């Protein structure tokens, strides 16, 4: 018997992944014997921090879990709190939330598609290198991001961590002309997004596909963004309140983040690929046409092609924002009246990276007794590890450095947001 050849790939700090992560892959002969994605910091610390706080503070506190998707955290939090209070925020108040969310999708997807994932496909080390070689492309990405920021600033009150969101609605609602002023930039964003679909569809993709169980929110007449039932490609169809009956989180020794699985079937995947598989028919006409031109169908299961799905979602987010602005009427009141009461509430919305689940328990004064937050990254962790195993097994002939890059590219398929919103610098002082 031939001596087994053992090869280890280790990435100590993952570049271009939110938070700090590390990856470990062990290969023995032509077998991958171990795959670990190590993530340092779960929102568990935030859950503890929320206990004893007022229910009205949850949107602002949870918004600081992630510097990229604060709106997602706010939206899942307000949904859960409003459920406990027994109110529904509908009509234009809800439309404004969806509009705010479109801004975040544009901002986050523009960052990921052009500046984080595209360099992998084009063979650049980073977006900085890409910007030196192709400044127009990066400039476009920044313009798109800026439009997303503008939407967030007008509705949310400021670009990052919108301060205008509150349980029950808003502190202040925008006037019609304020929203109308966003229209030219959003029309331009839609054009850039359409180009992004054509551009990403022309990239070279590794041959790879998995029969994932895809999980997303679902509403009868809308592409999933800010609410819906939780459905899957293998027949799951539940109310958000039933989440804990079907999904379970487990600790694994090598990562602080909890790994989620479906109690009955194990690993699953949420995010753009899942939303598209389950909701493609509810996209705008322009988004559907762009997807068709790009050869994308709801049967797509190659995770590398999620960069095309994100681009199609950029088209949709711009279209949907324009639609919401066109049908906007200023509401009579910025928020619905509500009183806290004791109870348990559930919220789930589609963060750019996938479903984000919140559960809160309040006492009769509205003090938070318990909080649970499950971000998309912990839901996708198992699927990411399965993919790493699969991708490495199919790419064993690659030299180590290329294999390592392929692994990073695989991880970035999921745009993992390693829930950690600090951005202090690691600084090494050199003295001479």
């Amino acid at each position, binding site marked *: 018997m031939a001596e087994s050849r053992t090869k280890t790939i280790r990435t100590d*700090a993952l570049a*271009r*992944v*939110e*938070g*700090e992560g590390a990856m470990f892959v062990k290969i023995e002969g032509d077998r991958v014997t171990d795959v670990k994605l190590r993530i340092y910091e779960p929102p568990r*610390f*935030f859950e*503890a*921090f929320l206990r004893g706080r007022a229910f009205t503070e949850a949107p602002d*506190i949870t918004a*600081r879990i992630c*510097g*990229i998707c*604060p709106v997602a955290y706010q939206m899942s939090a307000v949904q859960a709190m409003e459920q406990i209070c027994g109110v529904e925020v509908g009509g234009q108040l809800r439309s404004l939330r969806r509009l705010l969310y479109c801004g975040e999708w544009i*901002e986050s997807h523009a*960052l990921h598609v052009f*500046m*984080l994932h595209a360099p992998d496909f084009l063979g650049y080390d*980073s*977006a*900085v290198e890409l*910007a*030196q070689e192709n*400044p127009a492309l*990066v*400039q476009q990405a*920044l313009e798109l*991001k*800026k439009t997303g*920021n503008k939407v967030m600033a007008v509705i949310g009150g400021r*670009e*990052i*961590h919108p301060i205008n969101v509150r349980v029950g609605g808003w502190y202040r609602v925008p006037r019609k002309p304020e929203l109308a002023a966003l229209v030219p930039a959003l029309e331009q964003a839609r054009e850039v997004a359409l180009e992004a679909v054509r551009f990403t569809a022309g990239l070279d993709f590794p041959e790879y596909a998995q029969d994932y169980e895809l999980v997303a929110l679902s509403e009868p007449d809308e592409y999933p963004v800010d609410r819906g039932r939780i459905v899957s490609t293998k027949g799951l169809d539940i109310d958000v309140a039933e989440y804990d009956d079907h999904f379970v989180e487990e600790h694994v020794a090598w990562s602080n983040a909890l790994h989620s699985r479906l109690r009955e079937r194990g690993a699953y995947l949420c995010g753009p690929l899942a939303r598209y598989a389950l909701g493609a028919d509810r996209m705008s006409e322009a988004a559907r046409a762009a997807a068709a031109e790009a050869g994308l169908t709801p049967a797509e299961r190659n995770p590398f092609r999620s960069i095309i799905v994100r681009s199609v979602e950029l088209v949709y987010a711009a279209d949907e924002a324009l639609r919401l602005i066109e049908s906007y009427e200023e509401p009579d009141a910025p928020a619905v009246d509500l009183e806290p009461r004791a109870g348990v509430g559930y919220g789930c919305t589609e963060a750019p990276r996938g479903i984000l689940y919140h559960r809160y328990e309040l006492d009769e004064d509205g003090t938070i007794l318990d909080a649970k937050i499950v971000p998309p990254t912990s839901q996708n962790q198992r699927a990411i590890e399965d993919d790493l195993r699969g991708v490495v097994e199919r790419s064993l002939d690659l030299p180590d450095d290329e294999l390592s890059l392929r692994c990073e590219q695989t991880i970035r398929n999921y745009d993992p947001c390693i829930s*950690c*919103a*600090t*951005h*202090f*610098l*690691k*600084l*090494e*002082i*050199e003295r001479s």
Partner: protein
Amino acid sequence: MGNALRRDDAVGLVAARRLRGTLPPEAEVLEWEGEPTGLIEIWAGADALWLIDAVSSDAPPGTISRLEASGEDLPKRFGGGSTHHFSLAEALALARALGHLPRHVVVLGVEGERFDLGEGLTAAVEAAVPEVVETVRAEVERRLAR
């Protein structure tokens, strides 16, 4: 820039709040809690830029480091371990590549002690804030007086 709920990571935000109202009207003070590339559109068009951020190295907590980033990239190690998609160093490099970097860029780093979840700066970092504020205030005035 910083995260308001990560103790010493908030030092830049705290310093910005104290600077507000002390600077001439030509200078704008902004608190930024998002990822750094979002800053590019904001600083584009400015003549000069002062960035205050927490840093983590082996220096004693509260140590202030000042780097001029106008001419060349920050040393790679300066931002290599950032916990964001883009480090501040990368955002500066990206802006430079696109011609969106102000002529004069200064990064003031304050060595942090604790970055875990919670509010309030540790004593050593809190003690460094007045010097950071005064440094920026004096440099802004000198720049405007040129």
